[in-house]
């Protein structure tokens, strides 16, 4: 069988490209998986057209969860928040391209879950502001 830990995953875990924090992020959320202790915080800035201009994450946890969110933030540049809301487990699986067991899939999905929760909150705030 092919490994869950292809070089890209390990590299992105050891040296993530999108790790960091953003001040004045439009979208910001922080969540944890209490059972394994994985934690992820995401920050997203939108451009004038409402597309994703810059994204960062902070967090601790297993290589799968951390590399997955790092690759995710790379992939969403230029997307609209609504487009991100449309992403699902299949997107993550394709993006990672590794054989994930159900338990480990949960690790892989944590970043997307946190990001989408942040977007929902952002939208609610916008609606509240508009009305």
């Amino acid at each position, binding site marked *: *069988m092919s*490994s*869950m*830990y292809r070089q890209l995953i*390990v590299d992105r*875990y*050891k040296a993530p490209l999108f790790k960091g924090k953003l001040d004045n992020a439009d979208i910001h959320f922080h969540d944890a998986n209490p*059972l*394994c*202790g994985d934690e992820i915080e995401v920050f997203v800035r939108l451009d004038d057209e409402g597309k994703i201009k810059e994204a960062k994450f902070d967090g601790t*946890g*297993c*290589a*799968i969860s951390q590399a997955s969110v790092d690759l995710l933030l790379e992939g969403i540049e230029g997307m609209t928040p609504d487009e991100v809301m449309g992403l699902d487990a299949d997107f993550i699986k394709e993006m990672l391209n590794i054989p994930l*067991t159900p338990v*480990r899939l949960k*690790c892989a999905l944590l970043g997307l879950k946190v990001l989408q929760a942040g977007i929902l909150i952002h939208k609610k705030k916008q609606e509240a502001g508009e009305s």
Partner: protein
Amino acid sequence: MISITEILKDFPIFETKIHGKRLVYLDNAATTQKPRQVIEAISQYYETRNANVHRGVHYLSEIASEDYEEAHNKVAKFLNAKGMEEIIFTRNTTESLNLLAYSLGLNELEKGDNIVLTRFEHHSNLVPWQQMARRQGAEIRFIEMTEDCRLDLASAEKAIDDKTKVVSITHMSNALGTIIPVKEVSKLAREHGAYMIVDGAQSAPHMPVDVRELDVDFFAFSGHKMLAPMGIGGLYGREDILEKMEPFLFGGDMISIVSFDNATWNRLPWKFEAGTPNVSGGIGLAVAIDYLGKIGFDKIHYIEHELTEYAHERLNELSFIKIYGPEPKYKGAVVSFAMDGIHPHDIASLLDEDGIAVRAGHHCAQPLMKMLGTDSTTRASMYFYNTKEDIDALVESLQKIYKLFS
């Protein structure tokens, strides 16, 4: 004396290939594998003599009842109880401990009483007591852990007092392997008239247990951690206490006389076993105990202690490994460890790719993990069918993993 080759032949699962590799099973504290004698006993039961027990007068029911009673007798002997009236069959340790928490908690625990546990408790010996303490207005106290992850007996003397109704402690920590000096604690419980309960989930499979010599009132265990099928476990209880104790589950077979308004209870141990029991599980448990008897706890201890010492020795050679818990002489065959910069889940997944089964996580001991300053560890736990080759495979794979990440 049975050789390890003969032993391994008794466990069909070792023919299974994991990702094309030999199975190296080091998750025995979670559950053990089953010898063919146990598996065949279950099949044979269902193929030739399956029936419901208790009061059936037909042939199948009579032999099922005898076999089921006999299984109680076997467990009684195994724990050196007086007889089968002291042995209640449950699903697992968790149910055994809940039985006690409910029966003693609801009927005897009063406001101002306290319950004494240790810092090592599995959630199953912590959460039921938390709930009952809250319901009844009682207090939970803890016997502390020493720096080197052993029981701090001095703190036991402080924790246990005349308001202590229940002392309930693990016999061996599943997270760290620490063996708890039950008899010393029991002495304190006796002095203060508290019920003395032992969570034996990790001890019954690995060491001889003599409930009278330990001088305890209750002893809980799980069959699945000692070669027996899942869905069967037990609780030893001292006869005079069980006689007076209120039943926990109500229904068929645990009653004597029932009217629309009222009910009286069956004799021991049936008073505590409501509904159709897991007969095949009981039969499997009896065969598992026979199997353990054939190997012998002397040999089991010898093998496991050798393996634990060897594992410590080999893992200590690796600079990037940190072992949690006490030295081998103070513990059972459990090695819990951390690896620099690599998450336990990644370690376990990568070990799995080499066919090595370990557990990664909090081991149902979240508060203990927190005390140790972590969320989770990787845990290798051995049984008598493991070998030094298994440890070597673990060490080799850990080295590969470290290289991959550095």
